[in-house]
């Protein structure tokens, strides 16, 4: 009974109610959009980072990350990879060797120092965002389709190398050129080897375009004569949840297979690159600040709105009191109205939010017109921002706004309950 009356009360002043609902629902829509955007950015960064060589979990020799010494490698790379690949939840793996070396060609006197990354091209492909940045040739190995023209034929069967465009320019090389790479191999032994340029990439950042050269893992193992060793094994899991558990599982499986704890350590990405985690936390903190600020404004707005609504109807309440309605009923009535408003606003807000989320999660906000991506912690990050469309994006803000609306109605409702009929009628209604 009260319920129906409350409902009718609402609609007696259509305009007022509509405005109120409109405001709250729009506010909710904006909030939802914000959460979607922030979440999306976060996820995008994490995914990009995972894709760009960091992965979800990494394996190293225990001291390698700290000292970065070439001699801190893991043995039995193949066996290691096989065991890890077999673990549940592991989607893809890639092994690597890392060296610092210098590179030169016959076409120029310059010698450049580069970071040499030896990978398994097939596996690394699934990880690396760099695959999309190749502008000529293939990803370390030449693509089979490109078997026409002089260069690719020349490199067939040879050790291939993928270098950045700027480096290629400095060395004056092109696809098929022979280059010589010298690095400090294991135990300080000097290693010199010949590679043929099978791919050129362009990322727009000097770190890659000038300073990185990628070769095949097998080739590097052969050249250094080290055999089946690797510096790093990267794992891509099915999701970013519970990586610590997965890491522990992998560690124990390895221990069981003979890889003692002292030889291999398995870590989730945030232990390997704490700075990435920190940056994400930082972004999260900013989002949090924004969220809070928006909530403050929204709450202030809703509170004021509800209060004004009640104020406006003072006369009406006064009359009801005079007619004998009990305060408690008035109170309940106001609260119910607020409930309806909250409900309607939430529904509409979700609808509004859904529309904008749909837009930003599919089309995304593309900034790549302004600038290319950038390099962060060895990862390459692109510039299209998409929002996410998970349940959380909708549920959380809605709940907050719903509850907030109802709560904001409390104070005005209490005021109503404490009204005196005569004062209300005298003061109420419109002002002057």
């Amino acid at each position: 009974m009260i319920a129906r009356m409350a409902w009718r009360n609402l609609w007696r002043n259509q305009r007022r109610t509509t405005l109120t609902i409109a405001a709250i629902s729009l506010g909710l829509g904006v909030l939802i959009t914000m959460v979607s955007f922030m979440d999306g950015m976060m996820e995008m960064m994490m995914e990009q980072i995972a894709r760009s060589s960091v992965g979800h979990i990494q394996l190293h020799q225990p001291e390698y990350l700290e000292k970065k010494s070439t001699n801190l490698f893991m043995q039995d790379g193949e066996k290691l990879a096989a065991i890890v690949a077999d673990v549940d939840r592991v989607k893809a793996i890639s092994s690597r060797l890392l060296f610092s070396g210098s590179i030169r060609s016959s076409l120029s006197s310059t010698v450049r120092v580069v970071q040499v990354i030896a990978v398994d091209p097939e596996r690394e492909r699934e990880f690396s965002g760099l695959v999309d940045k190749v502008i000529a040739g293939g990803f370390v190995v030449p693509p089979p389709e490109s078997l026409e023209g002089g260069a690719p034929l020349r490199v067939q069967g040879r050790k291939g190398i993928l270098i950045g465009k700027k480096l290629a320019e400095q060395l004056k090389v092109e696809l098929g050129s022979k280059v010589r790479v010298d690095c400090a191999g294991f135990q300080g032994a000097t290693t010199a080897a010949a590679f043929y340029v099978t791919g050129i990439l362009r990322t727009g950042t000097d770190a890659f375009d000038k300073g990185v050269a990628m070769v095949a893992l097998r080739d590097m193992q052969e050249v250094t004569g080290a055999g089946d060793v690797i510096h790093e094994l990267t794992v891509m899991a099915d999701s970013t949840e519970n990586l610590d558990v997965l890491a522990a599982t992998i560690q124990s499986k390895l221990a069981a297979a003979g890889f003692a704890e002292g030889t291999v350590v398995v870590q989730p990405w945030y232990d390997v690159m704490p700075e990435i985690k920190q940056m994400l936390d930082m972004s999260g903190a900013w989002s949090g600040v924004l969220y809070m600020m928006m909530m403050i404004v929204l709450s202030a707005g809703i509170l004021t709105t509800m209060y004004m609504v009640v104020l406006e109807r003072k006369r009406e309440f006064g009359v009801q009191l005079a007619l004998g309605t009990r305060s408690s009923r008035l109170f309940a009535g106001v609260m119910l109205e607020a409930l309806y408003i909250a409900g309607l606003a939430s529904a509409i807000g979700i609808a509004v939010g859904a529309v904008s989320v749909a837009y930003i999660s599919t089309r995304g906000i593309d900034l790549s017109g302004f600038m290319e991506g950038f390099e962060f912690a060895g990862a390459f990050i692109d510039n299209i921002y998409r929002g996410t469309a998970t349940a959380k994006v909708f549920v959380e803000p809605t709940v907050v706004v719903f509850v907030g609306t109802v709560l904001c109605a409390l104070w005005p409702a209490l005021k109503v309950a404490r009204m005196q009929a005569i004062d209300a009628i005298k003061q109420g209604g419109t002002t002057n």
Partner: protein
Amino acid sequence: MRMMVAMVGLMAVVCLNECPLRAQPTELQLGAAEAEKVIDDMEERMRGKASVGEMEMYIKRWDRTMRMKFWELYPDKSLVRLTAPAEDAGMGSLKLGKDLWSYNPKIDQVQKIPPSLMLDSWMGSDFTNDDISRSSSIKLDYTIEPGAGTTYNGVESWRVTLRPKPDSPVVWEKLVVEVARDDYRPLRQEYYDEKGSLARIMYFEDYRESKSGKPYPYKWRMENRQDKDRYTEMRIISMEFKETLPKKTFTIRSLKRGR
């Protein structure tokens, strides 16, 4: 320096009296087999050899002349010490196997040259650290192609092409060695980039008789054709071939203190 010794060896291979010469070819072609034999002979003779001497190096790029003493023990030990100019005297470099150390008396410090600097120039010259330290083994790194006859500066010569094997860490597309037809002394050596342009060229001049009866060049010049006006010229002041040299010549102590 290695190059020098290798070249000396290449040249010194066919002695006029001892080795049975194949029949002098009448057409202007040196068959593949012949070319290979030449290389073989040279490498055989170089085994177990040593040399010691003094030389001068002029670098056009910096317009600078240096004097140095050198000791070399085939296949992979060498020591060089600067004797002039005075402010650089005492500096040296020591090669043992693949490792290269350099010493500077001004700071009394021996530093191991990291692999990333192997391709850097040696002492500012047009030779690289790697040129100096590479062990020679021509057959390992190159395939030998049949040669052709021509003349150079009025001397009749053979041009033999050496092609680096695809996997050998030599950047050049090919090398062409030109030797005199009569005594197989090297006249010049050309290095070609992969586009076929001449990138470097080494000239061998001033041949003098030596105790072993094989004339060898006392002057050779490496010209960099990719960068204008750059060459390095080495002039041997005195040199002696020996059967061997004491191991203690090639130590760090020796690098620092000299002998």
